[in-house]
């Protein structure tokens, strides 16, 4: 017995119309670049969006006053939802509004519902998002601004992720956008490093010709207003190595971290990394102060002379592109922090050597220096520090993984220094937990501080909340495990690294997993929330 299928009797024009409509939708989907979850309201709000910068404020203090989490209730912090990212080494820092969490994920920008984690929209991009996601108004629209590794600086509409402008800087031939931009008024300050750090592993590459830089863009259009290289006369021919390839120098002094701005003096501060090739310049491993309007250098303070290093040295010190003598790679990767303390304006700078320096922000003169770690290629001080001005404390994470030979013992953990003197107030030293995990105990990611707490995420996968006065651990979460996720993508945690935790209102948001340098990779975006207080 045959069942009659009436569908085949539909008029041909109706089938064609439906086919045409389906084709039109299929063709439009890539153009829209967005694939939203049907359950999710798609238009996000930017109301109450934080943070304003990578450092939460333009001084890069990483101090978050807007939170209800304190020492009295932190024990009620619990996992709210987990999102499985595509990236196995996520390094984007989120922006959180009243209803949405914006974050980069590999070659895409996501807008997730703050309450449920469902996907409001997804925008594909050229290049991996590597910075904090920031916000600003552009032409009456709420816009998001961020850096992608090779794509440069992007400004997109917060409503749907559609592009407003994108800018790759013209000057360096192989730029690497690694640090977060800083927005102040109509200015966007962009740190620039260079891919030559990695290209140097090719022995046929004529290392190295490029310089790090800071650029100022117009926030509305992305137009480049000034460009300040960190090495003058970079890339002169200095000879040939045994493969007959030309060698060049000086070079490098990349700007890895977010800049810091002082609206009162109009100065922008930033740190530089090591030179990539010899001769070394007097601007590597240094702190710069430049005029925000013109890019003119006000002062430069170098802390390690003659430091030339690149990734060729990780293959062999005999590699033709490894500088001889090889330097210790003691960058300033952590953004400097500006604070007012006892009538002075201090600029605090943490170095991969394990040194912390307090400078007079007007002159660059050293007020105090304190070495609190052995130092190494991932720090010492790696990604950033935090300041609680009311308590007079500088919170410094120390990584101290195995690195170049040193006469000091490692001191991995979280250190609290006195702002005025640099004296150590307390240390929360981490004990390595080597069973079934990468045996690294230090803290590489930047911490976040509140009025009475410090949130620090360790390389061993533990997120810890310390009492800011004493370092006592009040709450912790071990992320070295698998998680069920709201989007159904399998996720595991691993090493905490890079930007560290963001605290806002009753939430703590952090990505777990980072495999760039032998750490444990992972793809878990973790959102914690205070559990409601039990009613009596």
């Amino acid at each position, binding site marked *: 017995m045959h069942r009659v299928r009436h569908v085949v009797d539909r008029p041909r024009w109706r089938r064609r119309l439906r086919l045409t409509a389906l084709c039109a939708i299929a063709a439009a989907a890539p153009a829209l670049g967005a694939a939203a979850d049907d359950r999710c309201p798609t238009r996000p709000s930017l109301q109450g969006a934080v943070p304003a910068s990578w450092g939460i404020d333009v001084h890069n203090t990483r101090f978050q006053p807007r939170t209800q989490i304190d020492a009295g209730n932190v024990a009620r912090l619990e996992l709210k939802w987990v999102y499985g990212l595509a990236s196995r080494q996520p390094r984007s820092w989120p922006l959180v509004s009243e209803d949405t969490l914006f974050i980069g994920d590999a070659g895409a920008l996501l807008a997730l519902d703050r309450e449920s984690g469902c996907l409001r929209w997804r925008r594909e991009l050229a290049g991996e998002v590597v910075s904090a996601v920031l916000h600003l108004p552009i032409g009456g629209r709420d816009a998001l601004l961020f850096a992608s590794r090779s794509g440069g600086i992007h400004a997109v509409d917060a409503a749907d992720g559609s592009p407003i402008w994108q800018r790759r800087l013209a000057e*360096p*031939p*192989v730029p690497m956008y690694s640090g977060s931009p800083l927005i102040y008024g109509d200015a966007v300050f962009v740190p620039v490093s*260079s*891919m*030559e750090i990695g*290209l140097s592993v*090719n022995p*046929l*590459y*004529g290392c*190295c*010709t*490029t310089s790090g830089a800071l650029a100022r863009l117009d926030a509305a259009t992305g137009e480049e207003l000034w460009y300040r290289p960190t090495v003058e006369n970079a890339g002169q021919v200095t000879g040939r190595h045994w*493969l*007959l*390839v*030309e060698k060049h120098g000086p070079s490098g002094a990349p700007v890895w971290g977010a800049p810091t701005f002082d609206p009162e003096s109009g100065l922008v501060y930033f740190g530089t990394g090591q030179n990539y090739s010899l001769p070394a310049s007097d601007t590597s491993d240094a702190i710069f102060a430049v005029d925000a309007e013109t890019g003119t250098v006000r002062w430069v303070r170098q802390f390690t002379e003659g430091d030339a290093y690149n990734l060729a040295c990780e293959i062999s010190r005999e590699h033709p592109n490894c500088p001889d003598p090889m330097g210790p790679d003691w960058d300033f990767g952590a953004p400097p922090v500006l604070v007012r303390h006892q009538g002075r304006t201090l600029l605090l700078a943490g170095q991969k050597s394990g040194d912390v320096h307090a400078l007079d922000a007007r002159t660059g003169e050293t007020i105090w220096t304190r070495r609190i770690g052995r130092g190494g290629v991932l720090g010492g001080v790696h990604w950033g520090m935090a300041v609680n001005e009311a308590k007079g404390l500088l919170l410094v994470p120390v990584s101290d993984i195995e690195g170049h030979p040193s006469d000091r013992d490692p001191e991995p953990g979280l250190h609290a220094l006195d702002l005025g003197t640099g004296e150590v107030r307390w240390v929360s030293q981490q004990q390595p937990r080597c069973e079934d995990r990468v045996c690294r105990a230090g803290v590489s990611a930047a911490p976040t501080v509140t009025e009475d707490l410090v949130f620090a995420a360790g390389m061993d996968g533990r997120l810890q909340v310390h009492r800011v006065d004493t370092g006592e651990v009040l709450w912790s979460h071990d992320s070295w495990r698998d998680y069920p996720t709201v989007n159904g993508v399998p996720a595991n945690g691993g090493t905490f690294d890079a930007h560290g935790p963001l605290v806002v209102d009753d939430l703590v948001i952090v990505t777990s997993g980072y495999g760039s340098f032998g750490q444990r990779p992972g793809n878990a975006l973790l959102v914690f929330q205070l559990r409601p207080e039990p009613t009596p």
Partner: protein
Amino acid sequence: MNDALPLAGRGRRLAATVVDLILVPLATVVLVMLFDVVEDAEDYQSSAWIGWVLLLAVVSYLILNGWLLARRGQTLGKALFRIRIATADGGVPPLWKLVGIRALFFPLLYLLPVWPFTLLPVADQATIFGRGRRCLHDFAAGTRVVRAGDPAQPAQ
């Protein structure tokens, strides 16, 4: 099929391949240096340098092996280990087949790191354990590898 031709041993074939895998990249490095395609930062502004390096690898292969392949069906490695590529009747295959199918097409299989294409190189090699000792690229090019200098080899 000329079954009178003695097949080359698998060990000799492997050894000849190893020699070629050393010589061709070495020659490529020399050409890359001479033509200066990866020496400057500007070379990396696009992915064109990858194409240049691949092209120079092909040129290196032809410089080292072109004449031998065309005349005797041999690469330097095969000549060293006294084996050669032959058609079914024992003759020298046309150069375009040796280069266009046997030498170029099948190595490209190794550049597809996506499942299940990752099995293609294994499949290519696995059939050498058959009775005719022919890899998949031998079947595709209509060739087999035999001992050189054998009386059945046609006069050049």
